[in-house]
């Protein structure tokens, strides 16, 4: 074998290797997801945002809950029969209020039991989605976060503090513009939380809970641990199945962009019931 042939062989192998690796990873993910679905008789939807580094120039790409994500998740919900339970696995720093609320409201409308699994963290928008679920299953050290709205880089609650503390004639116009938006945003999120928690056993603490979570009681990155979530009256438990944690390991920090919502294609219907025409 000539030295040139060895070079080509090496070239071909290194070109094919990432592709084969991806296939293998995809395959093991699919196998694990379908195992969880079989064990729990549910549809599994993952919403995983890992912060990526662009290999090209080294800029970090921040991934968050976007409208495309909400579209994908809702498509998956549509493809699920209304009595089939949904297991939503969340690993996200949060994202657009619009997209998060859309997912949350779709979950709230789903007839079957919806369980949110939080293996590691689901901040902000992720927490908003969890609030809509019938049950939140967290691992012992997983955290949720406050859902107070952010305007650009400023927390809405802090903008309102300025207005409360400083005489209005000395406040900058731009701050006042933001304050108006902040007021509306906080009100909207608080009402949404109440709506999402409606009908859940929270011992009449709904108003207080909505206020605590949406009015900037804490900074936006404050970790709400399992114990605190329980004390707040959220429907949490900590019996997270091992398979869910194993599944997360199959979503490593990627080096390239990849779709952030994943689920096995095809509708989930109860075997005995005739499947109604699914959207899709």
């Amino acid at each position, binding site marked *: 074998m000539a030295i040139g042939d060895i070079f080509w062989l090496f*070239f071909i192998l290194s070109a*094919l290797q990432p592709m084969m690796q991806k296939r293998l990873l995809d395959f093991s993910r699919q196998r694990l997801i379908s195992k969880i679905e079989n064990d729990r008789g549910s549809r599994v939807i993952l919403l995983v945002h890992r912060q990526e580094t662009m290999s090209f120039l080294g800029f970090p790409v921040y991934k968050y809950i976007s409208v*495309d994500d*909400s579209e994908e998740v809702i498509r998956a919900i549509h493809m699920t029969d209304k009595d089939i339970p949904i297991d939503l696995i969340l690993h996200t720093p949060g994202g657009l209020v619009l997209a998060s609320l859309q997912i949350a409201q779709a979950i709230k409308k789903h007839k079957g039991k919806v369980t949110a699994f939080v293996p590691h963290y689901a901040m902000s928008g992720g927490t908003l989605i969890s609030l809509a679920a019938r049950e939140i299953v967290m691992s012992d050290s997983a955290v949720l976060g406050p859902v107070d709205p952010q305007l650009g880089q400023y927390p809405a609650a802090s903008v309102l503090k300025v207005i409360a503390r400083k005489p209005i004639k000395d406040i900058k116009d731009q701050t006042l513009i933001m304050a*108006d938006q902040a007021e509306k945003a906080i009100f909207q999120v608080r009402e949404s939380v109440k709506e999402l928690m409606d009908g859940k056993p929270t011992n009449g603490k709904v108003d207080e809970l909505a206020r605590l979570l949406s009015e900037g009681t804490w900074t936006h990155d404050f970790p709400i641990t399992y114990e605190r979530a329980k004390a707040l009256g959220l429907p949490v438990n900590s019996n997270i199945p091992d398979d869910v944690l194993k599944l997360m390991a199959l979503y490593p920090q990627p080096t390239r962009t990849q779709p952030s919502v994943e689920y096995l294609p095809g509708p989930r219907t109860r075997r005995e019931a005739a499947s109604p025409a699914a959207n899709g």
Partner: protein
Amino acid sequence: MKRLLKSIFSLKGLVAVLFVLFVVVPIMQSWRIEKLRDDAISALEKKRGSRVIVLIHRQESVNVLGVPLVRYINIEDSEAILRAIRFTDKNTPIDFILHTPGGLVLAASQIAKAIKRHPAKTTVFVPHYAMSGGTLIALAANEIVMDTNAVLGPIDPQLGDFPAASVLRVVERKPIDKIDDMTLVLADQSQKAIAQVTALAQELLSGKMPPEKAKEVAHRLASGIWTHDFPITVETAKELIGLPISTEIPGEVFLVTTLYPQAQQTQPSVFYLPGPRYKIGEPAGQETAIR
């Protein structure tokens, strides 16, 4: 033959085969998707006997520098849509599929007015979201059909980064001698912008509800009582705004939107099958004579 096989199985041949796989296959795939889109649109057109126009703005994830590209309703879109409407016989119903975060008021209002002017029935399908300018377009249609989880948004105008309504709040709250000149300039524009959008919405809603009701709905949507990203769900839209909305969205509409996935490269955001749409057996309308 033997020679050909031998050359394929030689290492350089393999490289050539790989090249074909890496270069030719993606091209074939994009052709296939285009074909599927055309098929899906024409299936919907056949089923409803209408012209289907698709306006989909997906946020292209990143360009070369890692800056997210935001897509919105612009003049190119309104031009393409106006052309599509013009090439549609006036007795042929038009179905719009909207998936957009909104965009320029000018472009959106041009589209909305053209829809309002179309004599045959117009329907807007909102499979997922149609915020701001998208909502304005939806108001113009005879019928809005939303998915149960789809949302519309408020149509209050935005001046750059600032919502017009919030700028006006500053002028209300702060003594005028303390307000920055630029803010006052913006406030003047804000006032005009809100009045214009309200009037436009009212005009678009006229004929679908009593005038006082249209005025009230237009005011609610355009005066900034919510933040600009507030999701107006089907229930909210029905109750608060009193818009005529149905949720019977045909499966074909979803098929069409799935065939426009998050694109890797920029692609045109308005799609429709070329060629005029007639009702069978009727003479062509005068618009088509222009061609």
